[in-house]
């Protein structure tokens, strides 16, 4: 299919534009998008853009390059939606949203959530300040979660490292969710609707697990015999 036959779907959201790319070669699609924006400059100028790239697997360099090109046109890319896990990861690394805050009504969301609730997202790097990882299932981090980083999971959160950022487990109301870390000293910890602020700091950190017990967040050192 040649680039000239491809068309973009553009839809207005509450405070941004959702552009859905057709299938095709990334270079063609990228060119097409930038062309459209150039041609309709007054329409796009100053817009916040969410881009649905379908199954396209994109590298960090692809997305960051596009974001820079868009910003030169006065368009801010804030979200990249994709069915490809690689692309979702890329977007998360760049601090872009991977889902729209309010799902569009015609997309039934509940069944998808049920399927995803038992899955886990594997994050094999340290999350630095300003990074946010959100996933409907569990989240496992192999690395530290630094102050200023955020983790939001529908299920439980495991941090194989130091947890010093903000963590929210059971974000959709699951009170069975737990949070564990080798060194548990978060800025703020939430499970379902309960919030705990930075708990006491231990001199020598021990692995701990936090659960919701009778409406209270309880942290306990990890002991093999007890669990």
């Amino acid at each position, binding site marked *: 299919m040649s680039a000239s036959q491809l068309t973009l779907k553009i839809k207005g959201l509450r405070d941004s534009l959702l552009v859905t790319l057709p299938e095709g070669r990334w270079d063609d699609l990228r060119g097409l998008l930038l062309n459209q924006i150039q041609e309709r400059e007054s329409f796009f100028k100053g817009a916040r853009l969410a881009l649905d790239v379908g199954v396209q697997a994109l590298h*960090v*360099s692809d997305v960051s390059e596009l974001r*820079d090109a868009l910003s030169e046109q006065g368009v801010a890319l804030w979200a990249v939606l994709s069915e490809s896990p690689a692309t979702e990861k890329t977007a998360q*690394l760049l601090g872009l949203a991977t889902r729209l805050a309010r799902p569009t009504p015609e997309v039934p969301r509940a069944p998808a959530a049920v399927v995803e609730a038992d899955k886990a997202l594997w994050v094999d*790097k340290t999350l*630095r*300040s300003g990074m946010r990882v959100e996933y409907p299932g569990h989240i496992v981090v192999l690395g530290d979660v630094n102050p200023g980083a955020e983790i939001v999971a529908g299920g439980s959160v495991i941090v194989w490292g130091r947890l010093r950022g903000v963590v929210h487990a059971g974000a959709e109301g699951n009170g069975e969710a737990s949070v564990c870390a080798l060194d548990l000293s978060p800025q703020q910890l939430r499970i379902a609707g309960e919030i705990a602020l930075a708990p006491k700091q231990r001199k020598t950190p021990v692995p701990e697990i936090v659960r919701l017990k009778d409406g209270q967040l309880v942290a306990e050192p990890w002991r093999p015999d007890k669990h």
Partner: protein
Amino acid sequence: MSTVLTIGSGKGGVGKTTAVANLAVALAASGDKVVCIDGDIGLRNLDVIMGLENRIVYDLVDVVEGRCRLRQAMIRDKHLPELYLIPAAQTRDKNAVSPSDMVRLCDELRGEYDWILIDSPAGIERGFKNAIAPADRVVVVTNPEVSAVRDADRVIGILEAEEKGTPSLILNRLNPIMVKRHDMLSADDVVDLLAVKIIGVVPEDEDVIVAANRGSPVALDQKSRAGQAFRNIAQRLKGIDTPFLALDDQGNLWQRLFAGRK
């Protein structure tokens, strides 16, 4: 081989511009050919610290917008013949330059100079993106303060996400006496959180302020401790293994830091 080295920090006021001026002076004094580019369009400072403000005729934006040739915007340093400054425009903003302009500009300078140092503005927006676009290496400057370290962490995360590699770190304005009293983060505390390679610890030194006001960077002052620290960092940038300064009279820095942990 030339290296494009960008100095960034996230937080303002931690000493990016001071670091650029001093590293440029130290590298040029060691015999290398150096150009510095002030990336802080609209809030330029590097020219003041280098003492070149009254020699500015053309600036970075004039080059990018084709009002002059690159050569015409390059100001030769007062002290060192192989050191040049390309100043920022004061009357424009960051959007006057794009990341691809910066890449083109640096490509033009590559080959002729050993070092192209770029002074990034504070923040993580357009000006920062411009400054890191052409970088081969990035050095992040931070202070031993929780807020500066938090911002450095954010910047390091962005650099990693943009596949610029892990930057190295300069810890600026460390006060050994306060560290000893446990009133200030130590170099170990900072490295522990940021998990990056540290290439220099610069002690807090009044001479830096005096030198900046005089427009003659402290690295030119052979007696200054901060000046020595910057000269050592320049050596390390060149790949020459240089021991860290002993920041107080009892033992060297690392011994003291280890003692401080207990």
